[in-house]
């Protein structure tokens, strides 16, 4: 329970601190921080902004979760970027070409996404587990390979088709869509958000309540002690990276199944790196990541709103960067504060005890 509090307090501190610095930056550049703040807050109630934030947060949650699973094992999966993009691309091709009945088609697309993500992560996983190759290096390189592979897959002479000056995979028919929640003029919430919530709960349960979660944390904390305790640390490296890849493979699907229905040259990129920042922000904690994802999505949207009123949008990029930097410091401050509070409490208890009893004999020494 202290964990949850720490997970909430530290990001809050980081946000306040970064906001103050950004306010100073705005003042220096001659803009009003108060106007900026007002615009950022009022935008949430306007148009589809609130729903957009929620939808982006769902995607961010998936990528951050993928990164967090690796972090539990001290594995740094930078390849989330390539995993989710390749998975979305292949899932779109399967969804658009293989004839399947409704519901089944949606499920198959989701499974293909997870499978492709896991397979793409299997390469660094095997290299790491059996050859000791750093997953940082191999996943970065595979990101570049994924970009090339996607370009090949959606060429008009393979699976893609020209549409205007864009190239796209065959559209997924209605039977493969994931129905969302329509809120009229406020927009449509991705139905995939249910899957995301289920994954978050599953992650929490897996980590805290299952043997697998224990083995994961044990091998992350001390591979030598885990080995002596009968945990196959090599197998855990494999499984953790495969799971990370499978979750990453789902990150492109909310947009694919709820809005775009095809993978195109202009499909979004860069979520993988956002995921690293959010996992850091949320300390790999399922609730912390959710808050981090919402915050990030809110700041993204604010950038657009600020642009409209003429405040440079870059200020929010600065703010996002500052938050990630300061949250690390904030966690340390909160930790020290809690330790000091605990120590004061012990001291107070002991004083009360000493007053109640007769004074204890002096420590002798000579």
């Amino acid at each position, binding site marked *: 329970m202290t964990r949850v509090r720490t997970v909430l307090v530290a990001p809050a501190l980081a946000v306040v601190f970064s906001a103050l610095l950004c306010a100073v930056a705005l003042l220096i550049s001659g803009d009003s921080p108060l106007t900026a703040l007002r615009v950022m807050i009022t935008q949430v109630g306007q148009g589809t902004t609130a729903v957009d934030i929620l939808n982006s947060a769902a995607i961010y949650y998936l990528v951050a979760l993928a990164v967090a699973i690796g972090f539990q094992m001290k594995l740094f999966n930078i390849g989330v970027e390539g995993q989710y993009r390749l998975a979305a691309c292949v899932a779109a091709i399967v969804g658009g070409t293989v004839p399947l009945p409704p519901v089944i088609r949606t499920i198959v697309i989701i499974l293909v996404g997870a499978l492709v993500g896991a397979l793409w992560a299997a390469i660094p996983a095997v290299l790491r587990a059996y050859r000791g190759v750093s997953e940082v290096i191999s996943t970065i390189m595979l990101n570049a390979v994924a970009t090339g592979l996607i370009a090949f897959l959606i060429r008009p002479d393979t699976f893609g088709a020209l549409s205007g000056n864009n190239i796209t995979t065959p559209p997924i028919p209605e039977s493969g869509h994931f129905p969302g929640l329509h809120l009229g003029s406020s927009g449509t919430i991705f139905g995939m958000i249910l899957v995301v919530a289920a994954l978050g709960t599953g992650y929490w349960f897996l980590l805290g309540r299952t043997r697998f979660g224990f083995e994961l944390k044990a091998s992350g904390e001390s591979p030598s002690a885990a080995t002596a305790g009968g945990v196959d640390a090599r197998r855990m490296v494999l499984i953790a990276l495969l799971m990370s890849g499978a979750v990453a493979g789902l990150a492109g699907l909310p947009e694919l199944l709820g809005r775009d229905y095809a993978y195109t040259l202009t499909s979004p990129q860069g979520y993988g790196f956002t995921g690293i920042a959010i996992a850091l922000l949320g300390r790999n904690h399922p609730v912390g990541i959710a808050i981090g994802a919402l915050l990030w999505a809110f700041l993204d949207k604010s950038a657009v709103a600020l642009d409209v009123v003429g405040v440079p949008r870059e200020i929010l990029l600065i703010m996002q960067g500052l938050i990630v930097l300061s949250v690390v410091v904030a966690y340390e401050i909160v930790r020290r504060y809690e330790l000091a509070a605990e120590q004061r409490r*012990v001291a107070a208890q002991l004083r009360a005890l000493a007053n109640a009893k007769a004074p204890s004999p002096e*420590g002798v020494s000579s």
Partner: protein
Amino acid sequence: MTASGNSGAGPGGSTAGEWAVELAGITKRFPGVVANSDIHLRVRTGEVHALCGENGAGKSTLMKILYGMQPPDEGTITVDGRQVRFRSPADAIRAGIGMVHQHFMLADNLTVAENVLLGAEASHGIGAKARARIQELAGTVGLRVDPGMLVERLGVADRQRLEILKVLYRGARTVILDEPTAVLVPQEVDDLFDTLRTMRADGYTFLFISHKLDEVRAIADTITVIRRGTTVGTADPKAVSSRQLAEMMVGSELPTPETRESTVTDREVLTVSQLSLAADDGGRHVLEDVSLVVHAGEVLGIAGVEGNGQTELVETIMGMRRGAHGTITLGGRDISHASTLHRREAGIGYVPEDRTRHGLLASQPLWANRILGHQSRPPIARGPLIDRAAARRDTERIVADFDVRTPGVDVHAAALSGGNQQKLVVGRELSGDPVLLIASHPTRGVDVGAQTGIWEELRQARARGLAVLLISADLDELIGLSDSIAVILRGRLVATADPSTVTPEELGTAMTGAGSGPNLAKEGS
């Protein structure tokens, strides 16, 4: 030992004043415990001052404060008559205080000289001047090896000396030794004490922590006893007996692992036959043709100087090392190729020699540490799920039965004192009715009171039919607990001894390969 030429940078001698170190009113609190409470300690210049106290009494904490690793909450530190405030060990070293930790902090793949120079390049450079200084100090600490030798080829006793040399090289005149003798055999302890006495004559001051009270009385000039974080008094090592000292510390009797009637059966639990293992680099053998049998209700002791293959033998039996030849059977079943988990599930408990590396998850709470090694078995596991309530309950049982001093089962394992961590590990490994216990130094770092407790638990389990493979550097423990003893030397079992007749001295000689006494039988041939 005549080399004592420490001119200039040597100890300050009488001019520095009577007290090398004065600690006054030191208080240090951690969440849930007061590790030190109003401690007063004065160490005379040029004496060996021993600190005694049960596990968790606060000895290591006090020494870490003196060495600048942790700031005290209250109290003052005075060194050579000047009040000081250490922000880091670097400050303490500058004030002439050095610390040798219980676990060696040497780089195996560097040479003796490189280990000394690493991080101390500023003192005398890295050239001829530095070499000359190392040679000079090597004489002081009695290290008689070539400075160009790789540390991995050094035995434990020489490593110990090298650690002291490192500290002296950085200019220490007061040296803290936290349980330096835990890994040494008796002869090595005697040699170390000779060195300490010579250095003391040269004016060096020592703070010495040990749970072995006979040793403390042999080397110390003054003994300070700490109980529950406060100094309860000082004792004169010439006047006090070990028994009195133990009573001062814990209020309990001095234990002896006395002999008792045998519970050995003829049911073979563990049989190892012709086990050989090549070194990691593929070269020589670290285990050669080792064969042994442990019966139900039997304790088989392995005697040997550290680094003669004990670690490899134990880790091979546990399935943590691969590539061995030979067979291992447990209760008649061949487990030579089983995984570590399967071996544990088959009923092997394992107390590792290095609890921090192989026994504990430092930043996990105690109850999570109870799960390690038992994650697949009841009462902890229910199918693929972990029963957290059961884990907590059973941790509380261990805490009570093994007298683990802790504010609760939610504190992190790293927050326990060394001896209390050890008790937790032993308690866990005896959980779940194992058929075989592999115990490497089961009472390492544990105080005399807790030692009796662990011995008693081992004896009871043995009476219930537990087979124990015991590795220990404490020869009294080895002789007192074992039903039979085998001596390991350079990866081979070279002799057997009967614990009812053999003396620690005979065993010590056999362990160094210097021949056999009347109570030793040559193995094999």
